[in-house]
């Protein structure tokens, strides 16, 4: 069963917990296909989306997830929150907690903020992405999408490509995928492979072409152009020449390889348009499943007692 107070990362989650989350998401997925996409499961519950960093996809996904479960969802974005008025981060969190929310979802551009907040407030915290630390809900929706397509996770090979150093998606996926028995290979320019990451039980390489043929899943990462120090890349052009997933590369891949991207996509930089639109690409399925996984987490954090059938 599920006894966690917070979802701060996937590092601490064990196999049974991840399976519980994915199974619960399975059962919630159908709700989003109904004509009336709402169940009363979390009626009377309040969920605050506290987003210190701009986000469209993730914030909307959390909002829809909460609303489909009948929770009241309040969005506070970085620009409208009082932190720009120099209110202490912890004070902001304590003030929100004083209004008795049931979950606070936190997104922040700097690593560690959701964990810091969780040390000061009593209500559950879901990390919606912090700096380049963790993005657990993204990893869980990735696992959900892989399991749905392949029927299993154990023994599958995934190749993750791009800016490993500045990716919170990579870190959360490494922990979760290793826990579920997958084999993880990281590919990217050597300036974007952080020190010591192979100690997380992954293999590391620089050559995309050689890392494709045994992959069951290829996950392309967003090039965080806004986070790059000017010394990491010679040019976007060269990056794209080396690491853009094109149909030429895909010829070497397994027939049933799945293509993932956590979004938002820089078209033509990480992934070519034809690959993005090919049937192997599950980029939009990832987004769809994100709602179900976030519904599952909200439900499990708040006790998971209500019946979802009505």
């Amino acid at each position, binding site marked *: 069963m599920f006894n966690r107070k917070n979802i701060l990362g996937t590092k601490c989650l064990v196999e049974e917990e991840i399976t519980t989350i994915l199974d619960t998401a399975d059962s919630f997925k159908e709700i989003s296909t109904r004509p009336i996409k709402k169940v009363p499961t979390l009626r009377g519950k309040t969920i605050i989306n506290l987003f210190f960093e701009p986000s469209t996809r993730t914030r909307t996904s959390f909002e829809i997830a909460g609303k489909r479960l009948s929770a009241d969802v309040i969005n506070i974005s970085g620009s409208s929150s009082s932190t720009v008025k120099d209110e202490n*981060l912890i004070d902001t969190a304590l003030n929100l907690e004083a209004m008795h929310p049931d979950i606070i979802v936190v997104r922040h551009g700097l*690593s*560690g903020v959701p964990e810091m907040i969780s040390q000061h407030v009593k209500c559950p915290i879901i990390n919606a992405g912090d700096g380049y630390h963790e993005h657990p809900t993204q990893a869980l929706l990735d696992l959900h999408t892989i399991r749905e397509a392949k029927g299993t996770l154990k023994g599958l090979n995934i190749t993750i490509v791009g800016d490993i*150093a500045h990716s919170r998606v990579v870190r959360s996926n490494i922990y979760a995928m290793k826990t579920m028995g997958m084999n993880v290979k990281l590919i990217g320019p050597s300036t974007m492979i952080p020190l010591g*990451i192979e100690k997380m039980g992954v293999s590391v390489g620089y050559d995309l072409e050689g890392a494709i043929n045994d992959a069951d899943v290829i996950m392309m990462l967003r090039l965080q152009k806004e986070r790059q120090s000017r010394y990491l890349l010679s040019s976007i052009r060269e990056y794209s020449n080396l690491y853009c997933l094109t149909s030429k590369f895909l010829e070497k891949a397994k027939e049933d390889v799945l293509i993932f991207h956590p979004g938002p996509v820089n078209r033509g930089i990480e992934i070519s348009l034809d690959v993005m639109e090919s049937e192997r690409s599950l980029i939009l399925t990832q987004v769809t499943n994100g709602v179900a996984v976030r519904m599952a987490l909200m439900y499990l954090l708040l006790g998971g007692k209500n019946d979802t059938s009505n």
Partner: protein
Amino acid sequence: MTLVIKNGRVIDPANSLDEPKDLLIHKGRIKAIESPGSISFEAGEKPSVIDAKGCVVCPGLIDMHVHFREPGFEYKETITSGCQSAAAGGFTSVAVMPNTNPVNDTRAVTEYILSLARAEGIINVYPIAAITQKLEGERLSEMADLKDAGAIAFSDDGRPVMNNELMRRAFEYSKMFKLPLIQHSEMLDLTEGGCMNEGMVSTELGLKGMPAEAEDIMVYRDIALLEKTGGQLHVAHISSKNSVELVRQAKSRGLSVTCEVAPHHFTLTDEAVRGYDTNTKMSPPLRTIDDVKAIKEGLQDGTIDIIATDHAPHDIADKQVEYQNACFGIVGLETALPLSLKLVDEKILSIGDVIKKLTFTPADIFNLEAGSLSLDNEADLLIFNPNLEYSIDISKFHSKSKNSPFDGWKVKGKVIRTLVKGKTVYSANEN
């Protein structure tokens, strides 16, 4: 006017003394050190007596690296609160870094700091003046005038001198005045935006790393310049394995280079950053277990001359923020002694060696009249119980700031009493 401290174990590395002795103090000076019970008095003379049974009596500790924040940042620490914190930690002399506001780069600021310290009269305060004006790394400060005003060394601490030509000239110029340069060794272009040691832990936590090479390169550069120019280099808060080796080699070539280590750098590693406690954020950052091992070897073989705290008080508002945005540094004066005494339990150093690195050696390097119990010296003394166990409680700190990662730590070795010129400036019984 007369005081006897009896029954203590007197440790005075300067005079190779480690025996049970009684001390006689008269008019603030040490007048006799005799076997227990053998100090005699004339009829009618009634000295006050301190019984130091079970305790070590040693010279008051010296900390060559503290930030007292006054003038300019009095909400973090003042000279008064800093001196109280020092006294509570067993320190009777401290050297204050110049990164105040205004910067201590002129006679007026040096004299102001000294006047405040003397007015309080708690412990001895030695100003360290800036190498460059306003710490801007552009022009040398008026070193002659600053020395005359009371500066005992020069440093741009926290703002390393990046410009090679300027650092060369600083060595040449300071040499005339026979005062050391203290460098915070960090190539800033390698650490920009960094907030912890670069390594496996920074990768996991998603925090930008500060590679050890940033320290090593500047230590090497300074040694190279020192070798050319002469002068005296003191490497502040050494933290990396390779830097220790560079200092070791330079010493073997006979260069006038010394270095210090802060207790947190031999007590903690970057593993402590997990959990994002901003009290684990300091510069240089907490490094790896390999670095800690190298530091302990350096302490053992004398490569690392002294222990200094880098006492860096920060208000809670400067620390209770995102890890990336938190100020660097922790307070250290009130935890230095017990953390250093752990080295005795670990059999890295003898208790006499620990005391030496906190008393005689810093006085020797910086030419201070302190750090020994020779007859007629001012009676700056520390009495501590080396076996008393207690828990560190930051709420009891005398410093204005409580930014320490050691809250709740069980430690051994408690300051019982600190005396300056024979006068008690801290007593555990009254606190």
